[in-house]
Each structure stands twice: as structure tokens, then as C-alpha cells.
């Protein structure tokens, strides 16, 4: 059987890379006494898959993984055992049992990323300026940014690594929502909902930086705090719904 779990990644643990996190979970399962199923072969691994990896340095209230168990365990037992051994900044919030592997992996299910972006302005601005700046961006016919592509297929060797080509992308099709949620003195918060197409998406920081640049805003350096709030999937009617909900 399988467990699907929603968890947080906060505090100092935002600095863990995706691989660090995978290792952390694998070891936490063992500490918690979760009965794991393993892959075959000389180097057996637990069978675990994650929804969209999070960039290093970004905090999250809604990350997800699927893990295959060798014995039955209720969601409540799973949450209890795991949270006792996980660090404070990574805690399971919710879990459900899945009887069988979903036809699409967890990676493919992620369809919308919800972020909050908080930052401080160098100087307070007049009411309305920020909303205008948002509209200005979203009303363009296209907004092109430079983005690192997948590894190039060209010549490469071990020492110099593979070259990642820069490519040009229009960010507008990815933006599902871009709204101002707080504007008090110099303290600003945005809600940014970004779509995922075929596992490709745009990092919130890239959109944010482009917006700052277009609007000519001066932001206090190091004040930007991005947090993932939710990851959603689509149901048959193309509505965004929780990843924990059955289709």
C-alpha cells in the first residue's frame, strides 16, 4: 500500500537540497519504524516520489510525497510516528492511504503552485501604484525572460559539466494569479499562482524579479521571502483541487 503525505519545509531546513531531503526522509522512515517496501537490486532503495522539488532557500507549507509500504499502516499512525522523529521544521500535516499507485506519478499531478512573496520597499508608495504595476505586467501581450533550459545535448565532459543553454520564455501563460495581499507602509505581500505544463514551470523569483525590473521598484535587499503555500492538481472538469483529494 501507499501513503501520500503533505509536509512543511521551513526555518533553517530550507537550505537542504532536494537530495538532502530525500535522504532525511529515508532515514526518518527507519527511525519511525515505518515498514518500507524496497526496490530490487544491489542497492535497494525505498520507493518514494516527490511532487515538484523546491528551490534551495524557499520555505514551504505544502510539500508532498508518496511512499510505498510493505505493511498496512493507517494515516494517523503514519503521521504520529513520523512527526515524533522529524525535525520541527519538517512536519507531516496530513496524510492519506492510497490503495494503488496513481496512474500518473505525483510529479505529473502537480498543476498549480501557489506562492506568497513578502518583501520590503525602500520607500513607502502611494496607494494603487503596486496594483497598477501588476496590471501593467499582466496586460502585456507577452513578457519574455531568460531562463536556464535543460542540459544541452551537445559535447560535454565530466570536468566542465554539461552546458545549460539559456532560453527565452514568455512567462504570461504560466501566471494564473498575481495579486496584492498586503500593502502597509513599506511591507508588501503578493500572492502568485503559477501553472505547471508538462512538469515545466517558472520559478516565482524569476517572475518577481522581472516585475520589479519592469515597474522600477526599489526593494530592500535580502528582504524577499518566498513561501510555497500549496500545490494543486486538476480534476476531470479542469478545476484545481487538492492533491490529497481523490479524482
Amino acid at each position, binding site marked *: 500500500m501507499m501513503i501520500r503525505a503533505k509536509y512543511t519545509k521551513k*526555518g*533553517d*531546513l530550507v*537550505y*537542504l*537540497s532536494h*537530495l*538532502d531531503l530525500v*535522504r*532525511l526522509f*529515508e*532515514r*526518518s*522512515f*527507519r*527511525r*519511525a519504524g515505518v515498514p*518500507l517496501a*524496497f526496490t530490487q537490486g*544491489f*542497492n*535497494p532503495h525505498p520507493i518514494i516520489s516527490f511532487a515538484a522539488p523546491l528551490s*534551495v*532557500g524557499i520555505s514551504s507549507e505544502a510539500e508532498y510525497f508518496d511512499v510505498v509500504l510493505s505493511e498496512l499502516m493507517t494515516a494517523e499512525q503514519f503521521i504520529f510516528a513520523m512527526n515524533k*522523529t522529524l*525535525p520541527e521544521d519538517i512536519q507531516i500535516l496530513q496524510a492519506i492511504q492510497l490503495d494503488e499507485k496513481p496512474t500518473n506519478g505525483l510529479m505529473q499531478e502537480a498543476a498549480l503552485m501557489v506562492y506568497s512573496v513578502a518583501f520590503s520597499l525602500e520607500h513607502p508608495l502611494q496607494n494603487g501604484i503596486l496594483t497598477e504595476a501588476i496590471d501593467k505586467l499582466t496586460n502585456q501581450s507577452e513578457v519574455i525572460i531568460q531562463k536556464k533550459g535543460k542540459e544541452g545535448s551537445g559535447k560535454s565532459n565530466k570536468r566542465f559539466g554539461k552546458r545549460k543553454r539559456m532560453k527565452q520564455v514568455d512567462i504570461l501563460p504560466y501566471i494564473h494569479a498575481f495579486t496584492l495581499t498586503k500593502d502597509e507602509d513599506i511591507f508588501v505581500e503578493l500572492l502568485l499562482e503559477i501553472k505547471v505544463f508538462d512538469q515545466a514551470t517558472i520559478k516565482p523569483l524569476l517572475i518577481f524579479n522581472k516585475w520589479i525590473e519592469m515597474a522600477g521598484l526599489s526593494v530592500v535587499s*535580502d528582504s524577499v521571502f518566498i513561501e510555497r503555500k500549496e500545490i494543486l492538481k486538476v480534476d476531470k472538469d479542469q478545476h484545481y483541487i487538492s492533491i490529497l483529494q481523490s479524482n
Partner: protein
Amino acid sequence: MTRLNIKSLLANVEKPARYVGNEINSVVKSITDDTIRFAWCFPDLYEIGMSHLGSLIMYHLLNEQDNIFCERCYTPAADMEEAMKHEGMPLFTLETKTPVKEFDMIGFTLQYELSYTNILHMLTLANIPLLKKDRTKKDPLVIFGGPCAYNPEPLADIADLVIIGEAEEVMLEVLDCYKKHRSDKDIFLEKAAAIQGVYVPSFYEFDYKEDGCIEAIVPINEKTPLIIKKRIIKNLDESYFPEKPLIPFLNVVHDRATIELFRGCIRGCRFCQAGIIYRPVREKKPETLAKTAKNIIANTGYEELSLTSLSTSDYSALKVLTEDLTNSFAQNRVGLSLPSLRLDNTTMDILKEVQKVRKSGLTFAPEAGTQRLRDVINKGITEEDLLLAVKNAYEAGWNQVKLYFMIGLPTETMVDVEGIFDLVVRLEHEVYHKRDKQHTHPLKIGVSVSNFVPKPFTPFQWVPQNSMSEFRAKHRFLKEKFRTKKSIQFNYHDADTSILEGVFARGDRRLSPVLLKAYEKGCKFDGWAEHFKMDKWKEAFHECGVDMDFYTLRERHENEVFPWEHIDVQVTRQFLFREYERALLEKTTPHCLAQCSACGYQQTGAGGLCP
């Protein structure tokens, strides 16, 4: 107490998790006026320091004590150093982000000579004066320990105090002494110097002869002991071992759980310092080890457990222990790794069982290419042993074998160097040309050649090291030979760093100024090829008027007073010289279980396996 906010530093550095602490099972204590604050400093990157078992033991042992809080600190990488300098932030500990300068004591473990400049680097980043004589009452005490501390002389001007031997007991005694004499550093040092295993370099003066050799080592007053005897843990079985060890978040070099089967080694390889300084052999009971191992896995969730020692095949209960552990770990797929093996038949059988769970690469260390030279170094491996072991391993399904050799060993000629190539070729031939239809997978052979560095407290402490040109000629020769063998991966270690290591291994306190000079010139992370700057080192030696060759290329006289003469590892100089002479005669010496060769320990009644 200061707690630094390091958030702004982390945004732009590689692997920020190196600096944030907070790992699972790490310790944070509340701090009162009575708390002795100890900063455990490892003079290398986090990934290296977090892989060191001794540091792990000491971290948890110190934190078990009521009034002691031990925190960790590693050398920041270049990008972090930049960021810290930019923000004017001093070196800080991982646990509470306190500046290292605010601690009572800071301890550095000396694992390899090439980390010495990193010690200066960390002190500098901490704003602590490098030289003992320049530090005031407000500065922390600087303590050294670890294997290189058996000859601590190159760091004599920097150290307040050096721990000679195994630290578990003596460290607590030192801290106890500190508790009583906290208000006066000088009195503390004087009292501490009376504890067995404690060396205070500033209490000794060195007289030199005209030829540069040491005339005498003189204690500065009658209260100072003439000889500093190393410390060992008599009953290792009852000694502290952490069952809830720190788990790094990052993928560190040795990213697995570890238990220690025994200390010491029965073998007596003549080039090996560990084999002498950790004498005598002291085993832990298999029941103790099994219990510890199971607790560690339960508390960490590691997928692999390493059973370490200097020669794991020599553990008397290896079969019982591995059976027990393999059975209890099978369900959770926890694998065992057995480093430092001799590949006799019993060991191979154990290995086959163990590696049913997870298979890792195999390593063999013949060290020398000819039987003659293996006899000289007392490495009791024959060519037949080796052929059989490799064949067995291959047939049992291993597809990767690594072979370790050394060049520059005493009495070595080009015949021995060529012998390395010949031996490897015969091994490959044996496996490939005798393989039957059942075994058709390829075998990857890796050959790794390092450069011999004569070390104190070994039978070879008298011998000259190879010169740069000798090393280079041998490297060229082997490289040329192996070029024709595409199937074999040949690697060799850079000669520059081995020579510098040779200078510091047998160096004296006249090297302290050179170390400072080299650091001033930008030398640090010398163990990392991409950071090593031989030209700067040469300049530093030159400007200090110190000759590297004096330390490396000189054959020492039988009775020469060595810089480590006042350190007693309880193995006699007579024994070491006897072994040196036997080496030159190409005579082997039996291991401790077969026959005691009266190295000196038999008289001390120190426990272990000795008569």
C-alpha cells in the same frame, strides 16, 4: 553572550546547510555562568569533519557532562569566508552561532599535517592571536589532539596544551582541572601539565647543535614532567560510545553509522604510525557492539553501518557479530560495510554473506609490488593470497577492485616499482583468462599509488624520504607502463604535498614560523589539490631560513634526539630500531597474536591482548 544572525550570509553560498547546524541529534544546552564552553574545531570543510569518528565521540561525550557545552565549527569554504568578511562577521559555532572567541577553550583535532594552515586560518577568522604568547587571559585556550599530535612540535608556538593519546578520559580530567582554576590560565596550565597525557609545549625549551639537530629538550622548571606518557582507554568495552549520534543533512564523505570494533593493531606494518601509537590491541565484546549497533540504527535510521578498526579481519568475533547484525538488519535493508580487510578465506566468506544486502567496491592494499619489498615493510601478504582473493571476489560477483600501493618505501628500486605493474597485470590475467562461462562480467581494476611519508614512532622514522625528482621519475615510469593497459584505471598522488607532509610529520618547533609565513602568503586548504601552492610554501621556507631537505632527505643517526623524544607512546625506541634493522635484512616479524616481539607494552600491564 553574542548570537550572530547569519541569515544574510546564506543566500549566496554553496551548500548553506554546512553552516546552520540544527542536525538531528545535535545538542543545544542552556548556558549559565558555570558552563564551560568548548568549541570543537575541525580544520577542514564540514563534509570532512562530520565524517570523523573521534570528533563525534568527543562531541557527545563532552555534552553528556553537566557543566560542559561542546559546540562545533568547521573551516568555512572560500565563498562563505568572503561573505563573512564582507559583513564583518567572525568565525562562529554551528549550535548557537556564538563567536569562537567567546569560548573557554577551542580544540582542534590534528588528522593530517596538511590541515595545519587551516588552523591558523580559523584562528584568524575568529580574531584570536595565532601565537600562544600573544594571547591574553580573555582569549580562549587553544588545545590540540589527534594522531598528528604525537609530534605536535610544528604547532608548538600556537598551542596552549596538547593531548597525547586517546582523549576520552584525559579530556574530562583537563576540563575538571579547568573548572578549578578557571580564573588563572597560568596556574591551570601548570596543574594540567601534571595530568598524564597532557603536554604544554611552552614548558619546554629546545637546544640545537651546530648541524641543526637537537642537542637537548629541557623542561623549564622542576615541576614539569620530563616525559609525557600517552593515554589509552584500558577498558574499551566499557568506554563511552554515542548511541544517538549526529546525523548530517548534507551528503558527507562517510555518510553512515559507525561502530569501533577495537583499537590498536596486531600487524606491525613498519610504515604504519597508527599501528604503533594505538597499541596495544583492545577489543570490544561482540554483545556490546551488537547492542550499540542496533541502538544507533534505531536512533539514526542510517542505511549502512561501518564496522571500523585498523584491520577489521583481525577482530576475533567478526563472524558472530556480522551474522547477528546481518540478520537483524536484513528486513530494513541496512547494509554493513567492512573497511580495512585482509582478504583471507574466512574474511571472504564473511564478506559474501554480508554483501548479499548491499554490495560495495572492494579494496586491497598490497602496498608494494614485490615480495621482497613487502617483507621489508612487514606486510604479510603473498602474491598467492592476493590472486586468490581477487579471483574469489570476482566469482562472488564483485565487478570492482581497488588496489593500493606506495612508492618511495625504504630499499625500493625500479624493480619494485615495475613490480607494481607486473602484479596488477598478473591479477587481471588470472581473472580473465581463467574465467569460465558462468562468470563473464567485466572486472574493473583501479590502481592507486601514494608516496611514502616516513612518520615518527615507526621503524622508518630514521629513513630519508624520496626526493621530488625520485617520486616524479617513478610516477612517469608507472604512468607510461599503465598507459598500455586501458582496462586498468591508474591514479597517483601528487609528490609536492607528500613532501610537505613529510616535512611536518617529522618537523620540530622551528617550523611554527614557517607555518605562519605560509599562511600569510595565502596557503590554506593545502590538502586540496586546487588550493595547494607549493611556490608559496617554498618562499616561506626560504624567507624563514628553514631547509625542507633537512627534514625529509636526511638519514637520521641511530641516536639522534628526535623532536618527539619527550613524548612516550610506550613502545620503545629499541624495538623500533630493531624493526628497522630487520627491515633492511628483509626479515619479517610475526604479528602480536603469533608471537609477542616485546615492543615495550608487555611491561606496562596496560590491558589488551599483550602478555
